[in-house]
């Protein structure tokens, strides 16, 4: 079957472009670029498409939003607030909701897309972490990802404040309370950010320019870099049949992957539009205008700030006064330490792992999480740490819902934040080994076929059949985690770099972290009793 000529309009345009920038060479190499397939590779795309939707809906909102903090008397369509004194920012947010057709939809879509953006980044990051897809050569892209997540939190925080309703104002107040508690520079940071005393009249305009220009600009640049690096380095693939560290197996960019990605964008778009239609979010008119004198009970931040809220809530009241200066530990520890641990830990992990395993090779085959038990356990314990803090960010709701004393939930959090991660580590590690054993058993002994067979001497056995090719190939994709050679040489001197306390620690960690915990042994001797019975080879291999 011939493909036929390229239609004239397309041929003409592409000739025009090729004559000028030589795009043909690029397209020759890239039109049929292969993209490996796995459901988990689509998680990052949720974030990417949510970002595009954020740009679209956000631009719509800027056409009406006014970042003013001067007081105006509300004169819009929403009856209950008529005649109330409020900031111009809040009034314009109400106008977008009640006086612009589709305004409420766009506002709700923007908010839902923001939640999905950050949630998408988080699950994508977890996927990359648990499959070891951050390993060489992808460390740079991993760090870009960590930066993106941090920036996205800042972007969310600034955007959350803009409607200037009572709920968002509470968030802003907490932000200011944290900023002012910073040692040495706190009051200056607060006065510079707010143009004087809190809340002042400047912060909306400042947050607005950060929210619509500076941070999204950086996000856009970093996302582009993230995409380019992914494109240049080619996507990792799951272990499987015919897949090696030297190839990519999958569908071509044009036409299949392109169409699938387009459809996926539309699905994301549709889900966000559907949520904005059927699931109300942030009904700002119900909260009223912001005043520092008021608050409503059960004030919760958006989900991505929940872990900071929780860590503030479970912190005991520690404060140090030295030489006339105050160190409000009960604020700065919960505000900076969990975030610091998580973000720094994420950024350094690829390098720490390299340091421990001594592995400097390129990796393009993703690990199955069970095949690197310590990494998976570390990840799960980080999730537990984050999750406990996050849960405790809503301890008042938990307390009300489950009828537990509020202080009991706080004490639970104080203990669980340490105990939970340790427990998660141990359980995950054991589960990984169990799953590895399971894989080894399937490869070694086959899958239970459900066929019961009676042997000539009367014994009943269940016939095991070899696993399906693709599943077996997927399981065999496992390889031992490298360790650094720590054994002392002939004269009992350990290798260079492993001497001294840090070196010994490194050797110890390498030995624990690396190696093959449950080796796959494909012994063909199925079942001792079945081997002699050669009448059923097809079932027993």
């Amino acid at each position, binding site marked *: 079957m*011939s*493909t*036929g*000529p*390229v239609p004239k309009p397309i041929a003409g345009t*592409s000739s025009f472009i090729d004559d000028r920038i030589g795009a*043909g060479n690029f397209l020759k190499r890239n039109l*049929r*670029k292969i993209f490996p397939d796995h459901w988990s590779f689509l998680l990052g795309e949720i974030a990417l498409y949510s970002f595009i939707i954020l740009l679209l809906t956000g631009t719509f909102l800027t056409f009406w939003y006014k970042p003013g903090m001067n007081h105006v008397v509300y004169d819009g*369509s929403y*009856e209950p607030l008529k005649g109330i004194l409020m900031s111009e920012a809040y009034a314009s947010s109400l106008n977008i*909701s*009640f006086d*612009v*057709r*589709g305004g*409420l*939809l766009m506002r709700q879509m923007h908010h839902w897309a923001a939640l999905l953006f950050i949630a998408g980044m988080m699950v994508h990051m977890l996927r990359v972490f648990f499959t070891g897809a951050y390993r060489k050569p992808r460390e740079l892209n991993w760090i870009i990802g960590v930066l993106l997540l941090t920036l996205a939190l800042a972007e969310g925080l600034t955007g959350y404040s803009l409607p200037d309703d009572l709920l968002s104002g509470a968030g802003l*107040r907490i932000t*200011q309370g*944290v900023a*002012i*508690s910073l040692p040495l520079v706190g*009051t200056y940071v*607060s006065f510079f950010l707010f*143009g*004087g*005393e809190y809340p*002042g009249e*400047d912060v909306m305009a400042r947050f607005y320019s950060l929210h619509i220009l500076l941070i999204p600009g950086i996000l856009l640049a970093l996302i582009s870099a993230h995409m380019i690096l992914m494109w240049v380095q080619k996507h990792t693939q799951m272990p499987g049949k015919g897949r090696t560290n*030297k*190839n*990519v197996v*999958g569908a071509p960019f044009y036409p*299949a992957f392109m*169409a*699938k990605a387009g*459809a996926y964008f*539309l*699905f994301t778009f*549709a889900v966000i539009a559907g949520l*904005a*239609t059927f699931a109300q979010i942030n009904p700002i008119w119900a909260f009223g205008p912001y005043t*520092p*004198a*008021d*608050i409503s*009970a059960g*004030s919760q931040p958006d989900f991505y700030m929940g872990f900071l809220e929780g860590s*503030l*809530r*479970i912190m005991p*009241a520690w404060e140090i*006064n030295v030489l*006339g*200066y*105050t160190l*409000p530990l009960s*604020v700065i520890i919960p505000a900076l330490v969990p975030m610091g641990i998580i973000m720094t830990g994420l950024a350094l992990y690829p390098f720490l792992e390299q340091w421990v395993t001594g592995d400097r090779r390129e990796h393009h085959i993703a690990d199955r999480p069970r095949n690197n038990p310590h990494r998976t356990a570390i990840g799960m314990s980080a999730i537990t740490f984050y999750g406990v803090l996050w849960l405790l960010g809503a301890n008042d709701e938990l307390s009300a819902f489950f009828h537990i004393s509020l202080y009991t939930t*706080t004490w639970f959090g104080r203990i669980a934040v340490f105990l939970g991660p340790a427990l998660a580590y141990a359980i995950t590690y054991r589960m990984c080994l169990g799953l590895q054993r399971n894989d080894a058993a399937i490869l070694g002994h086959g899958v239970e076929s459900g066929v019961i067979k009676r042997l000539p001497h009367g014994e009943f056995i269940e016939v095991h059949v070899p696993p399906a090719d693709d599943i077996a190939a997927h399981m065999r994709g496992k390889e031992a985690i490298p360790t650094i050679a720590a054994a002392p040489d002939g004269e009992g001197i350990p290798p260079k770099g492993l001497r001294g306390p840090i070196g010994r620690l490194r050797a110890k960690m390498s030995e624990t972290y690396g190696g093959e915990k449950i080796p796959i042994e494909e012994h063909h001797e199925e079942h001792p009793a079945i081997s002699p019975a050669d009448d059923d080879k097809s079932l027993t291999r």
Partner: protein
Amino acid sequence: MTDNTNGTEQPDERVPKRVIGTPPPGTPMLGEEESTEVLKVPGVSLQDPRTAKKGERLAALCFTVTFLAGIGFIASYVAFQVGDLDSTGVSNLALGGTLTLALLGLAVGIVVWVRMVMPKYNLVQERHAMASDEEVRSEVGETFMQGAQESGITKRPLLRRTLLLATAPLGLAPLVLLKDLGPLPETKLRHTVWDPKQHGGKELRLVVEGSGQPIRAADFNSPGGLLSVVPEGYEHDLNALSKATLILINLRPEEIKSGTNKNWTHNGIVAYSKICTHVGCPAALYEQSTHHILCPCHQSTFDATDGARVIFGPAARPLPQLPIGVDGQGYLVAKGDFPVPVGPSFWERGDAEAEVREKGGQV
């Protein structure tokens, strides 16, 4: 396009006759590979024609749904006006519903197209190590050093050092420019508008937040009562409110413990700062039976009968107490400012409570 080889013109019935100006059929458009017979490449398995036909119909149905929903969206925009809660809700439902349906139709249609019409792919592409060859690396290194030498930056220290010197202040300039973002804190955080000295000795009345009514002590006489209070004349000054807002509590005199300064109360009425000493949320919840004040943000809990000392939660200091009394007409007024800074702790604050105690005062 790039190489217009005048290949053989294949008399193929399905291909229309060649149009002048277009390449002949079968001409490779983008280099040599994959020009013809694309669909017989190994790793590309064609769909069964019946499935493909079914897929085409299904996708067409989805696209039609999108078309109709798109028209519905535009119609909804025209038909449904916004304004009150109900009409806005209807408009939101109509616009959002049609938009969702339109997007969903398009998405499902494309997926059907990919899965039922397009072939199944299992193509393989080679990877190449990311690192360049050793040769390339050393060549780049040489070129770099050659350029550096040609530029003279390595052997002319005067040039190099003055260049660094020149850029240093420029790098600082943006930071300097940010100085006018705000005034310096000075002692602003130590005073509130309650201080009579700010008003030439005039003692500000306590007024109810929201209504602005001054409070006659005799009227606020039921023990267990609670009011949120702001300074008269500053009801809408958010900067003032963020420090000066009070909770006014009526306690039985015998309930008041030593932590509370009794001289600053009036007939069992005691005023504490409403701004939480943790991160500044209004500590707005009050439990009458226990006299506990609870901040809803992070659940710091204060004992109203005992100088609002902390009994639970992350706040490290009690809510400061405001000295109150009554004016000639029996209205509650502030007799002075808070003895210590209100709200969240900050670096320069120091142990203000201890300082007050040293001077013989009570916090």
